[in-house]
C-alpha cells in the first residue's frame, strides 16, 4: 500500500509537468507519426474534414475517459485479466459514442459505419491505458488522455484537409477550387480557379498512406531527434 500512497501525492495543480502531458503528444510523442498507433481509422475516415472532425472528437472523448476510469480502478484490477477489463471499459465508452452519434448525427454515423466500432481496437486508447493510466493518478491520466486524443486529432485533420482539398476541391464540403457540377449546365458560371481538375487519387484509400508517409517525413526532417537510426 505504501507506493499507492506516494502515487496519490502527485500534485493536482497545473504546473510544468502537467503542461508537458498535454503538449508532448502534439510533437515529440505524437500517437500517429511517432508511436504509430491508431493508424487504421486515421486512414479510413480522412476522405473529408467533416468525418475526420467527428472521429477526432470521438477519439478524444474515448481516450480521456478511458484513461480516467482505468486510472481510478487501477489498484483493483487483477493483472491477469487487465486486458479484458480495459477492453470492456473502452467498449462501453465507444458504445456510448456510437449511440450518441446515431441519435444526433445520423449521416456521419452512416458514413463512418464500422470505424466508430473500431475505436475499441484503436491501439492508442489501449496503448495509453497500458503505458500511462495503469501507473498514474486519475487527474494526470485524464490530461494524458486529452493530450493524446488531440495529438491524434490534429494529424487526422491535417490528412483530411489535404485529401479533401486536392481530391474534391472542397473544405468542409464548401467548393474552393475547380468547377461545380452546375458548370456543365451553365457555362457562364465559371468559378474562380476553374482550371483545377479534381485529383481522384486523393479520394482513394492508398493516398492516405502517401499523405501520412510524407507527414512523417516532414515531421522527422523538422524534429531531427525522431530520425530512425537503426
Amino acid at each position, binding site marked *: 500500500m505504501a507506493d499507492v500512497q506516494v502515487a496519490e501525492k502527485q500534485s493536482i495543480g497545473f504546473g510544468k509537468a502537467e503542461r508537458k502531458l498535454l503538449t508532448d503528444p502534439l510533437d515529440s510523442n505524437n500517437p500517429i507519426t511517432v508511436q504509430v498507433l491508431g493508424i*487504421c481509422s486515421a486512414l479510413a475516415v480522412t476522405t473529408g474534414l467533416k468525418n475526420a472532425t467527428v472521429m477526432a472528437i470521438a477519439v478524444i472523448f474515448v481516450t480521456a475517459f478511458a484513461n480516467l476510469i482505468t486510472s481510478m480502478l487501477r489498484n483493483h484490477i487483477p493483472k491477469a485479466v487487465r486486458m479484458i477489463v480495459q477492453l470492456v471499459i473502452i467498449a462501453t465508452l465507444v458504445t456510448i459514442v456510437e449511440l450518441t452519434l446515431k441519435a444526433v448525427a445520423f449521416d456521419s454515423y452512416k458514413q463512418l459505419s464500422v470505424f466508430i*466500432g473500431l475505436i475499441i*481496437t*484503436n491501439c492508442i486508447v489501449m496503448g495509453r491505458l497500458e503505458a500511462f493510466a495503469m501507473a498514474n493518478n486519475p487527474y494526470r491520466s485524464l490530461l494524458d488522455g486529452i493530450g493524446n486524443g488531440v495529438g491524434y486529432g490534429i494529424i487526422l485533420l491535417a490528412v483530411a484537409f489535404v485529401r479533401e482539398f486536392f481530391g474534391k476541391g472542397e473544405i468542409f464540403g464548401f467548393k474552393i477550387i475547380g468547377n461545380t457540377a452546375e458548370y456543365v449546365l451553365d457555362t457562364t458560371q465559371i468559378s474562380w480557379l476553374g482550371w483545377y481538375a479534381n485529383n481522384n487519387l486523393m479520394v482513394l484509400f492508398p493516398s492516405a498512406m*502517401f499523405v501520412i508517409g510524407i507527414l512523417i517525413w516532414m515531421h*522527422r526532417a523538422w524534429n*531531427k531527434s525522431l530520425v530512425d537510426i537503426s
Partner: protein
Amino acid sequence: MGELLNIFIKSAFIENLALSYFLGMCSYLAVSKTVKTAFGLGLAVIFVLGITMPINWVINNFLLSESGIFQTDLTFLRLILFIAVIASMVQLVEMVVEKFSPSLYNSLGIFLPLITVNCAILGGSLFMVSKEYNFAESVSFGLGGGFGWFLAIIAIAAIREKIKYSAVPPALRGLGMAFLLTGLMGLAFMSLMGIDPAAF
C-alpha cells in the same frame, strides 16, 4: 461450394483487409521488419479470424438478434460481446497452443496477445454483420480475410528487408518508407477490384 470459394477469393484478394481497408495497420507496421516474425503473426491472424468469426456469427444471430433466444433487439451489446469473445478466444488459443505445442507457442511468442487489439479481427466480425453472411459464408470470409492479411504482411516484410540496403533519405527511413510502400501496394491491389469472383 462455389459460392464459398468466391467469398474466400473475394475477401483474400479483392477486399483485402490490410491493403483495401487498411485494417490491422498497427501490428502490420510494427511487426513487419523481418519475414520470420511477419510469418508467425500472419499465421496467428488466420487462426484467430477463422475461430472468432463463426463464434461471433452465432452470438450475433442467436443471442443479439430479435429472432434469438431473448426475443429482443440487443444489438447495442454487439461491440462489447464481440471484443470479449475475441479477447477470451485469444487467451484460450494461447493456453491450448502452450499446452499441446510448445514449439509453435515459442515461435508465435508475443504475437498471440497482440492480436486482441488487431482491428482486422474486430473489423472482420463487423463486416460479417453488415454483409449479412450465413454461417458457412462467415467461416469462409474469416479464413479468406486472414489469408489476405497474411499475404500482405509477408509481402511488406520482404520489401522492408530488402530496402534496408537502399539509400533512403534519413528522415524517411523506417516508418515513413513503410507507409509509402504500403500505399503503393494498396494501389497494386486496387487493380484486382475489377475481377469478378464468380468467374472462378
